[in-house]
């Protein structure tokens, strides 16, 4: 065991920070301060800049345009991106769909889809959940029936994250009802502009738009859009979901939230002094920072460990990470005092559920804080609810 970051890793961090400082357009950083879901055009713009540098797809193998970084380097990169409030890439496409494509898809499919993801041109959605299936994916009912060189797809998908930005969707469909549930599932790549697809926004507790429902009414999909083998969709989905869990510890994001919380606590007063000097607040902030410190090291352990350890640690950091994200968001909103109780609509309006015609009393540094505290209720639910994760930990790690 040696000291934490090696000299090479420290130099890498400095390199990334310097690049971001010189290349991230200030208006994008400002927009990121408010921590709204980024706008698609901002995302594309930044991904293109990164793509020119060869940094747009940190997780990918070099063969498909990845930079060939270690797990720790990828972590450092993400950390620096969050620190600078840079827009995220299309994470569904980059982090979830692409690994399935370069691992399981045909060479034609890889050529067709991967470059457009890498360059921020094509955005993806993920079509797994259905009404009634929730965490129990194997019960999904959307059907794909073979008709010549097409599949005809009918059904409904829900909880489709950022689906309103999507060009393509990675879908799990049932191609066979005769076999046991998991064995009858296949993975299709579907163009969201195909006839027969309808989207309905699902407004969430923050009055924001993150998830959508998609209705498929006899949508015709070329058979060449089947990923891998028919009936093997379940194993691709498990592969994908395992990646999702590792990501969802979201330590860099939490660290950025903590920095924002500290900034708020230096401004907001309590009993005539900055809140940051209040003993009770200090103790709660400290506990969050300590838990984040522990989680960060746990993630780094997972990133440097033998890969066989990855799955179990993933569940573990997902549980803790998702709870931490709630705690930091709640404390930030509490730090705002009365202002933390005000609904503060996105000034850009892209996600506005309805216009109440009212003016927000919230200062610029407080925009988005209350909405975030509300929406973070979802972190312990999505990506496999924490109850599912705990059962998984008990079964796989503890072998109970």
């Amino acid at each position, binding site marked *: 065991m040696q000291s934490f970051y090696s000299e090479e890793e420290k130099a890498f961090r400095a390199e990334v920070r310097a690049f971001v400082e010189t290349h991230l357009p200030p208006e994008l950083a400002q927009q990121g301060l408010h921590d709204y879901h980024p706008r698609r055009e901002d995302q594309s713009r930044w991904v293109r800049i990164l793509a020119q540098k060869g940094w747009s797809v940190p997780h990918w193998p070099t063969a498909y345009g990845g930079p060939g970084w270690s797990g720790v380097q990828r972590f450092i990169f993400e950390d620096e991106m969050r620190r600078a409030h840079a827009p995220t890439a299309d994470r569904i496409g980059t982090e979830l769909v692409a690994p399935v494509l370069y691992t399981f898809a045909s060479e034609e499919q890889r050529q067709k889809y991967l470059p457009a993801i890498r360059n921020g041109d094509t955005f993806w959605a993920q079509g797994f*959940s259905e009404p*009634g299936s*929730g*965490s*129990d994916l194997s*019960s999904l009912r959307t059907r794909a029936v073979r008709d010549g060189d097409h599949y005809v797809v009918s059904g409904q998908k*829900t*909880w489709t994250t950022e689906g309103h930005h999507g060009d393509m969707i990675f879908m799990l469909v049932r191609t066979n009802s005769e076999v046991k549930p998991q064995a009858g599932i296949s993975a299709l790549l579907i163009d969201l502009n195909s006839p027969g697809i309808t989207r309905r926004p*699902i*407004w*969430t*507790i923050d*009055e924001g738009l993150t*998830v959508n429902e998609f209705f498929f009414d006899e949508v015709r999909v070329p058979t060449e859009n089947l990923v891998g083998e028919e009936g093997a969709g379940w194993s691709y989905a498990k592969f994908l979901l395992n990646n999702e869990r590792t990501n969802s510890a979201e330590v860099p994001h939490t660290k950025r939230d903590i920095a924002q919380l500290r900034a708020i606590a230096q401004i907001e*007063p*309590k*009993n005539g002094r900055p809140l940051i000097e209040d003993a*009770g607040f200090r103790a709660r902030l400290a506990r969050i920072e300590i838990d984040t410190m522990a989680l960060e090291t746990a993630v780094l352990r997972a990133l440097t460990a033998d890969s066989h350890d990855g799955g179990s640690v993933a569940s573990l950091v997902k549980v803790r990470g998702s709870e931490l994200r709630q705690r930091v968001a709640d404390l930030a909103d*509490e730090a705002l*005092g*009365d*202002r*933390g*109780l*005000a*609904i503060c609509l996105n000034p850009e309006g892209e996600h506005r*559920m*309805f216009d*109440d*015609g*009212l*003016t*927000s*009393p919230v200062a610029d540094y407080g925009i988005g804080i*209350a909405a975030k*505290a*509300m*929406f973070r*209720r*979802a972190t*312990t*639910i*999505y990506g496999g*609810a*924490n*109850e599912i994760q*705990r*059962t998984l930990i008990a079964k796989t790690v503890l072998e109970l």
Partner: protein
Amino acid sequence: MDFAYTSEQESLRDSVKRFVEREFDWEERFRIIRSTEGVAAGHWAIFAELGWLGAGLSEAAGGFGGGAIENALIAEELGRGLVTEPFIAHVVATQLLAAIGGDVVADLIAGLVMGEKRIVPALQEPVGRGDWRLIETKAEGHVLNGVKSLVEGGATAEQLIVSAQDGDSTSLYLVDLQTAGVTRTIYRTLDNRRVADVRLDNVSGTLLASGPEADAAINRAVEHGIVALCGEALGVMDTALWTTRDYLKVRKQFGTAIGNFQALQHRMADMLIETEMARSILFHLLGAMADGDDDARAAAISAAKTQASSGGIFVGSQAIQLHGGIGVTEELNISHHYRRLYVIARQFGDVELHLARFAESVDRLV
């Protein structure tokens, strides 16, 4: 010892329950909260007509002879429907005026009880973080300067009862919202209430009370407000709890109702415990409101508010968690239960404030 409600109290509860069921069903509530006003025209008049606006006020003060119990149970039933009318503000306003007393005030109370006047308290300030005792608004020769925040009912009110620092002591002023120098910013809180921040720039007010009398009136009125708020929290918690229970019985995953999973059963048991503790401590508080000891009452107030705040957040957040994804949607009521409980947890002081206030009260008691 008797925890049963009187038949008059039971019929008052029934009248609120019927209103909520008939006039405030879920679809109707959505229309209301997305309207410009955030409340339905005519509802407040119904409240007055059904006698709710005077139910929690003594006859001597111009009410119908009830007290904290009546306000708590009205609020509990309004909480079940997440009714957005500013009932808590009304309780505080009438109790403020009742504590002040006198002829002018009697007229104001009469107008409030009849639903003809709209007067709400403006006690809190942004700097107070929920502590109504922190007042920086200044009064000099009946001229007011300062900012009041989170004024419930501020969007529909005509007049405010404003607390201000008057030299070394506290005063209460009646301020007309149409007076020059008053700037009102109306916004929504997370629970879809329309509230106002009110800025006072050299605004003339009418003195209602000053010195210890004003402090006592504020304290007594806020305590009544907290009782009602705790009643409302209980109504919301209880509804969120049983709504979630019902969902667990029908929602199927992995081939069985998810209510069969032991981990979820135990969570539900904890939610029930928190709810029952909120109910129990509210009963204790209602007893303390009738007894005479100031410190015992203050302790009971802060105890009940602590439990309403922490228990409410627990029940509300776990109701969402047990619903899964659908619990986070705007269209399902369960997210709105949480939003209301979240706001209640901070209104009139958060857990931290009330733990400290409880400890001070108990120090004087033991």
